[in-house]
């Protein structure tokens, strides 16, 4: 037998007769959506990585308080990595009898390796890809204001005179250090020795920048890790901006989840469509058996048909997915400051492999089931119990599905939650539904004709009803999960960056200047946030145990131990701070209490009631831990690790820190603030906010895009589930017509049946989705879970309306069809 020719002929005939429409639609949706998602996430992830790299001026950086050994740089260069470096130190500038403490940064020739510097001249911003030439200095506007200088003038740093060439507005890696109090001066590394500022014992900060291919960077990173000294820290693109990294991680998890859900419902649709395919081909199969076709030959024949179909749809699906992704590219790239990178070939192949695997794993078990049935048995719809091989095939299909899910998500917890809970709840609910349907049979005789006939459809075929119910339920769960997560993620991102998020930080405001600042806010109608007093100090002991004796566990602890902290006090718990342990102080309570940030407390093993010792300008004081707080680090407002009760820090001089929002048209008013408060360090974070916003916009866009795919897959699954009993339904409707049933009764019956299916699926979906959401929110997305009551109510209502309306539409033609036509088709 020429299997290929016959297989092709059968596929071609089925294609022309429209028998394969549903199966092809389900396959195309699964393949094209998974290809498009895979391609988009791949491109976006790579592009975001590039974007994030711009925020640290490199792919990877090492921050150190001492110079790195030359061998480290040689190792990096031998692995084809580009290098650059910057040395920072404090220097006091004196001009026109004015003194100013500045933070000088001497940069090498190739700095920055990623991103760009921004300077301004005559009110225009200019992008620079290299630092100043030797002999030149770029400075913050504040340096000019305070020292009463203008561009072209000279300034002396240490022993070297520099020409003030440009006003320096932004450095790519500045965002990593918002609260640098002193204004910046940028010079060339070649001039560093001439300043004689680098002497033994000088307090210097070194940053080494590296960029290159991902493999080389990973290798270098691994090589570095065991050699790092306590004062050295690796900075990577991911860690540099926690608010972006956090959003990216969650978006990535969402995309994985959405693609997994689309995969699951597409697989269900494919399984149902193949079941229908086998059902429709039963007479054909029986006939081939009657004509002498062996089981082996039949198996090969159908296997080849499915292979042909799988390859054809996989090819088209991959092409459609790639095309969709290509159509989206211009839309996505407008959200990103860098160009979208090309997707990898692996992303292209994933859809193809997926399509074939899904089809074969769903199609093979019913084929094996036919093996031990006689030709007459097939005609009579008699099926043998599933043979061991078919069960093995189902087990194999399930394993394949699990591995596909794991492969596409790379997230074992997510896969386990979805598959484990999914399977377990399927089994439990299937058993409960079975019992319910059996019980329902006893009540049927007491019901009116329309109810009896409608519900009899459900009770007479319990296995099919349960299959249909579970298909609808999984569809609703998918929509519930994707809609809930989408809304909660978007809300979280919106809260992260509200419309008037503070875009300026003002630091170093003296207490006497506060009325001036407040008057400026009032006059210029600027929205200001709370003002916090700042005392710079170090934590030196916990319960009299010196901190230096404790081994550092991570960077957070390392920073807390070695860096000065901004200490503040407040009567009230600041907005966005959440008390996680202890109590907030009330007004009459004595000073000497401190509230510690939760994560830092956990890292340093600080508990309620512990006595912390701090050092401020060589003076020591203690405070008792009265509460622990959770902070929202993404809110663009001042946040503090240590917050004291009023009166605790009275003995120390303080300056004030605040943040405010200035609209684009109000920017000129900043000049008057700078003039009135020349010592204030004003930090503009518009660029950063814009960058975060564009990334969040892109993520929101792609999240919505994925949701459309979920809807397509859901409708496809619905039609597949409906089609399983379509023939029986058509036949029964035609017979009822013969005996005089009018369309009102037939519609009423259908509505009862579909509403019942819809209500049951809706209620089941609410129960399972809430369970899944609570687990996913807790373990995968780390978002607080609050049941969405609106969704709990709307899901069953939507389910009843959706299933009834779509069911009616799909059966509408049946009501106007002459019964004989349908009966003859049977």
């Amino acid at each position, binding site marked *: 037998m020429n299997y290929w020719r016959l297989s092709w002929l059968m596929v071609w005939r089925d294609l022309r007769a429209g028998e394969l429409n549903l199966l092809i639609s389900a396959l195309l949706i699964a393949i094209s959506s998974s290809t498009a998602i895979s391609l988009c996430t791949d491109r976006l992830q790579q592009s975001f990585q590039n974007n994030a790299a711009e925020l640290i001026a490199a792919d990877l950086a090492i921050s150190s308080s001492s110079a790195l050994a030359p061998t480290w740089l040689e190792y990096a260069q031998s692995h084809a990595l580009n290098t650059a470096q910057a040395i920072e130190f404090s220097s006091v500038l004196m001009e026109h009898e004015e003194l100013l403490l500045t933070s000088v940064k001497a940069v090498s020739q190739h700095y920055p390796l990623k991103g760009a510097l921004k300077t301004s001249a005559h009110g225009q911003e200019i992008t620079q890809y290299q630092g100043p030439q030797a002999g030149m200095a770029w400075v913050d506007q504040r340096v000019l204001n305070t020292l009463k200088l203008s561009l072209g003038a000279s300034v002396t740093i240490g022993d070297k005179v520099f020409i003030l060439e440009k006003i320096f507005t932004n450095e790519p890696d500045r965002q990593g250090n918002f609260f640098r109090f002193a204004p910046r001066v940028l010079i060339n590394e070649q001039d560093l020795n001439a300043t004689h500022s680098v002497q033994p014992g000088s307090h210097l900060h070194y940053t080494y920048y590296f960029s290159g291919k991902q493999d080389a960077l990973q290798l270098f990173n691994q090589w570095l890790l065991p050699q790092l000294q306590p004062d050295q820290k690796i900075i990577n693109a991911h860690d540099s901006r926690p608010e972006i990294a956090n959003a990216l991680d969650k978006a990535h998890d969402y995309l994985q989840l959405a693609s997994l859900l689309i995969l699951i419902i597409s697989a269900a649709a494919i399984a149902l469509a193949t079941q229908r395919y086998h059902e429709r081909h039963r007479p054909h199969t029986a006939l081939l058996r009657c004509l002498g076709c062996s089981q082996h030959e039949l198996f090969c024949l159908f296997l080849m048909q499915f292979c042909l179909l799988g390859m054809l749809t996989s090819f088209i699906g991959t092409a459609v997915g790639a095309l969709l992704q290509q159509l989206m590219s211009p839309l996505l790239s407008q959200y990103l400051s860098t160009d979208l990178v090309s997707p990898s070939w692996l992303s292209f192949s994933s859809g193809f492999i997926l399509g074939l695997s899904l089809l074969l794993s769903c199609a093979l078990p019913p084929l094996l089931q036919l093996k031990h049935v006689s030709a007459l048995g097939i005609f009579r719809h008699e099926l043998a119990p599933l043979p061991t091989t078919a069960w093995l095939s189902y087990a194999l299909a399930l394993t394949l599905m699990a591995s596909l899910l794991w492969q596409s998500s790379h997230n074992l917890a997510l896969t386990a939650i979805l598959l484990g809970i999914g399977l377990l709840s399927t089994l439990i609910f299937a058993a409960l539904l079975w019992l319910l349907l059996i019980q329902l049979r006893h009540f049927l005789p007491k019901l009116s*004709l329309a109810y009896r006939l409608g519900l009899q459809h459900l009770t007479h075929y319990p296995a099919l009803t349960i299959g249909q119910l579970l298909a609808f339920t999984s569809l609703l769960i998918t929509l519930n999960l994707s809609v809930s997560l989408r809304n909660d993620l978007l809300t979280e991102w919106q809260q992260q960056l509200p419309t008037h998020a503070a875009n300026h930080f003002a630091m170093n405001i003296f207490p006497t200047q506060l009325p001036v600042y407040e008057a400026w806010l009032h006059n210029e109608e600027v929205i200001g946030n709370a003002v916090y007093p700042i005392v710079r100090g170090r934590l030196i002991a916990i319960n009299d145990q010196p901190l230096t004796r404790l081994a550092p566990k991570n960077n957070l602890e390392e920073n807390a131990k070695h860096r000065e902290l901004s200490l503040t006090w407040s009567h009230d718990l600041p907005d966005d701070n959440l008390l996680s342990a202890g109590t907030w102080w009330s007004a009459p309570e004595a000073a000497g209490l401190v509230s510690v940030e939760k994560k830092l407390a956990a890292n340093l093993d600080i508990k309620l009631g512990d006595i912390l010792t701090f050092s401020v300008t060589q003076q020591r004081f203690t405070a008792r831990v009265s509460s622990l707080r959770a902070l929202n680090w993404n809110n663009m407002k001042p946040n503090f690790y240590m917050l004291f009760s009023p009166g605790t820090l009275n003995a120390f001089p303080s300056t004030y820190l605040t943040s405010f929002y200035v609209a684009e048209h109000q920017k000129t008013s900043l000049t008057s603030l700078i003039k009135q408060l020349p010592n204030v360090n004003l930090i503009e974070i518009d660029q950063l906010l814009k960058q975060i916003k564009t990334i969040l916009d892109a993520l929101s866009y792609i999240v919505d895009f994925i949701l459309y795919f979920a809807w397509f897959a859901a409708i496809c699954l619905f039609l597949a589930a409906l089609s399983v009993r379509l023939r029986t339904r058509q036949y029964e409707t035609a017979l009822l017509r013969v*005996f005089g*049933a009018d369309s009102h009764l037939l519609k009423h019956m259908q509505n009862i049946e579909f509403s019942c299916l819809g209500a049951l699926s809706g209620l089941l979906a609410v129960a399972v989705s809430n369970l899944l959401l609570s687990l996913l929110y807790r373990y995968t997305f780390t978002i607080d879970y609050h049941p969405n009551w609106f969704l709990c109510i709307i899901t069953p209502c939507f389910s009843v309306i959706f299933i009834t309306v779509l069911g009616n539409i799909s059966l509408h033609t049946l009501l106007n069809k002459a019964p004989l036509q349908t009966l003859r088709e049977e």
Partner: protein
Amino acid sequence: MISTDSTHTKNIIVTDNLTKTVQTPQGELIILEAISLTIAAGESIAIVGASGSGKSTLLALLAGLDTATYGQIIIAGQHLTTMTEDQRAKLRTTTIGFVFQSFHLLPNLTALENVMLPLELTGVKQAKAIALALLDRVGLSARIQHTPKHLSGGEQQRVAIARAFVGQPKILFADEPTGNLDSTTGAQIIDLLFDLNQTHHTTLILVTHDRQLSARCQRTLTLSAGKCL
């Protein structure tokens, strides 16, 4: 144009120029061509002819199960061809019974429920009692709770006959009622059909290949290539 006035009232079925065609890729195919006939109330008629001559199509058109391309049909004084699908269904509940060659019982209903169905559709209160009596009459009182899957071919056809007679229709259409049965069972079914027909004074129109069966009818209508001979 035929009328529904008093001259036609004793004729329960009247057709005029009844034609049925279907579109095929090769063009229009004529199934029935210009059939004009009258059937009196209480008459029994056998429609005979070779396979593909249009017998079953004619029967289905007369019962309102299919729609004609041209021509008119009047059943019990009502124009069938101008009716909607719902109106035809309504007419069937009061006037028409139908027995199919392949029984066509609703698979999810028991024998009793299948027989009760036409009565329930018209809202008859004593549907169960009437159906039980009729099932007893066809010899199936012991099988009333069985679904079609658990009944033999002969038993299924008895249920189908009981279902066809339960609404006391004026006209009974039977499309090769013994076509799927062995000769002994077939003979029993035919006896039952004619017996019930006599009891209920129904007009009987059946399609058959069986000469003995057609001989038991008062009139035979022969079709050839869609035309009435």
